[in-house]
């Protein structure tokens, strides 16, 4: 029960406690302690030092171990930066909302951990919906028109999407009619073990509904719009949390049904659907990168692109599957840096419009350089991790039954790289016409420290490539029945 307490109950208790504590600093300290405990325990579980006994509806396997460590890592850095972020001045109306920040953040951790550790589709659904509920008010942090609209759209679209996913779960129950699974509970492993017996028509219908429904939360095209609006208008730590971990929470739901279907005769159908969704996401990111004029929106589209790449890797299978899992780790870390630096730029220039941001390297040299490095990292420049994971995904595509996809993907990625670069270099270097501000010495802030620490982490993981991580990924591929 200790594991269950730290992963799920403690954040829930602290969420309740934060609601009653008025002092933000105390809220911050206890939230940080919870985040540290969560990270340490995830690490122990991941390394194999500790194997927690969890109650019914929850269990730990290679996939949940892998995703919970990503969540813990992203959450820890986000909480760490939150207090310095909250100290920044906002409009008076928004000041009032700050007191709920840590309550919601802790509730998010509870819901997200529950979703990742669940071994039952019903429990997963309840927890995944709860993550939406905890994040939606955080999107409305700035209390302005854009954030309100983004929150409404996110709440509404994702709730409808998740409702669709629930229909998919009911279809899964129907697919078990007439088999040994009839009348049984929706535990993943029972369905995986007897996947061959499931009715293929209902199983396909189930996959369509779950995939399309959860796409609203993952940000897979054409269901990405609510997610893009939310990520681009949320405060930067929350945007980092959404891009780095919340999207993966939904992805794990898709992976669970994909795992079931991969042992049945409907596998090729599901695979094709996933590949179409992924390529469409890359296409959407490719098109919108041409016209986007809001740099946080650009980062949101970059998330659509990378989640597209991850799903593509999952769909292709083999080496690409391994690459996709590595990509999930690297993308989550890089996105934290990108969003935190974008937050610094937003705070200084008071605008998210690219045209209103000029000469960042002069005004905010530390932020500017780190932002540039993060752009290079997300674009797949070595020695940062994404280079290695993309190589694996490309290799996987090349040796798969659909090698022509590599040309399409490379084409999209090239233009995304160029267009993102154009926007970022304009922000960093271009001087405004009537520039009258002198360059200032930028203070070394906590965000810079976090960015540097994350760069080191990113490089160490990608260069050293820890055996424990590789072994876990191999275990996941075995669970999915993939031969490497």
């Amino acid at each position, binding site marked *: 029960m200790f594991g269950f307490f730290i992963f799920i109950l403690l954040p829930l208790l602290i969420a309740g406690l934060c609601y009653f504590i008025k002092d933000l600093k105390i809220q911050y300290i206890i939230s940080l302690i919870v985040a540290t405990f969560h990270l340490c325990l995830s690490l122990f579980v991941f390394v194999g030092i500790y194997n927690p006994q969890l109650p019914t*509806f929850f269990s730990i396997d290679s996939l949940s171990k892998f995703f919970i460590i990503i969540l813990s890592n992203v959450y820890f850095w986000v909480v760490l930066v939150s207090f310095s972020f909250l100290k920044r001045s906002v409009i008076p109306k928004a000041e009032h909302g700050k007191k709920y920040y840590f309550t919601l953040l802790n509730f998010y951790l509870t819901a997200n951990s529950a979703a990742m550790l669940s071994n*039952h589709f*019903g*429990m997963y*659904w*309840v927890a995944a*919906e*709860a993550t*939406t*509920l905890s994040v*939606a*008010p955080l999107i*409305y942090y700035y209390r302005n*028109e*854009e954030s*309100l*609209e*983004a*929150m*409404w*759209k996110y*709440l*509404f679209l994702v*709730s*409808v999407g998740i*409702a669709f996913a*629930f*229909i998919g779960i*009911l279809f899964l*129950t*129907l697919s*078990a*009619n*007439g088999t040994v699974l*009839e*009348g*049984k*509970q*929706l535990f993943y492993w029972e369905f995986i073990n007897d996947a061959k017996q499931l*009715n293929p*028509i*209902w199983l396909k219908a189930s996959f369509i509904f779950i995939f399309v429904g959860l796409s609203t939360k993952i940000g897979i095209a054409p269901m990405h719009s609510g997610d893009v*609006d939310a990520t*681009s*208008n949320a405060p930067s730590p929350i945007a980092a949390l959404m891009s780095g971990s919340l999207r993966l929470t939904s992805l794990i739901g898709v992976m669970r049904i994909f795992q079931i279907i991969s042992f049945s005769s409907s596998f090729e159908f599901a695979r094709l659907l996933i590949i179409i969704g992924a390529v469409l996401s890359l296409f959407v990111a490719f098109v*919108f990168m041409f*016209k*986007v004029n809001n740099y946080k*929106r650009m980062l949101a589209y970059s998330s659509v692109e990378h989640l597209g790449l991850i799903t593509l890797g999952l769909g292709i299978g083999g080496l690409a599957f391994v690459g996709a899992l590595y990509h999930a780790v690297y993308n989550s870390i890089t996105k934290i840096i990108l969003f935190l630096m974008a937050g610094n730029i937003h705070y200084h220039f008071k605008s998210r419009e690219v045209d209103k941001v000029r000469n960042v390297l002069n005004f905010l040299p530390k932020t500017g350089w780190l932002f540039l490095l993060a752009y290079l990292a997300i674009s797949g420049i070595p020695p940062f991790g994404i280079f290695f994971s993309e190589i694996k995904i490309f290799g996987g595509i090349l040796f798969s039954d659909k090698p022509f996809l590599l040309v399409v993907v490379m084409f999209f990625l090239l233009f995304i790289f160029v267009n993102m670069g154009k926007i970022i270099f304009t922000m960093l270097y271009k001087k405004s016409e009537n520039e009258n501000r002198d360059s200032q010495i930028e203070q070394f802030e906590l965000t810079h420290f976090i960015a540097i620490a994350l760069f080191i982490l990113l490089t160490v993981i990608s260069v050293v490539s820890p055996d424990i991580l590789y072994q876990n990924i191999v275990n996941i591929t075995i669970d999915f029945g993939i031969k490497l």
Partner: protein
Amino acid sequence: MENVLSILFCLSLFYVAVTSRVKEYVTILRFQGIILTISSIIPIFYHFSFLGLILPTTLLLVKVYLIPRYINKVILDLDIKRYIETTIQQMVFMPIVILSMIIIFLVSSILAHNTELNVIPFASGFSAILVGIYIIMFRKKLIVHVCGFLILENGIFLFGTAVASELPMMIEIGILLDVFVVVFLMGIALNRIRSTFEGFEVSHLGRLKD
């Protein structure tokens, strides 16, 4: 009995398709809540247990009392106009609903040849899901969208009863709680939308574009 309740549920959908008053939507939500509560009570007659009473009680509390009361409060507080505004004519909406329902019932009966399923609750639930989506698509007022979402949720619930296996009670209650909190948050958001945009229609939400 289940079939009778499902048919009553379908009739409520027809009423939703013809009514043009916002308050009637709330009445229908309450009515559907009662039907769902009764359908969840039926199994108790066969195997009585006190634990089994928890789900119907929660359903009654959430779907019949709390949610309709909360939506009514939002309507009163925000002084929302009584009539819904549509993007298509009411006379077109009704045939679309009827046609969709006919197709759903036909397809369901064909599907029932291969899989063992309760056609009437299955098709009624699915019809409600579709009507909910139509309401979201073809109505302008955001509060009506929330009602459409709830009709969709009710449809899923009924649909769930048509599928043989039952979800554990703890999860069912979790789902109800989630739905309630969604509606609660949407109510708060509507309140803010009213003070920020001075209106509650979809047309007011057009700032976020590429």
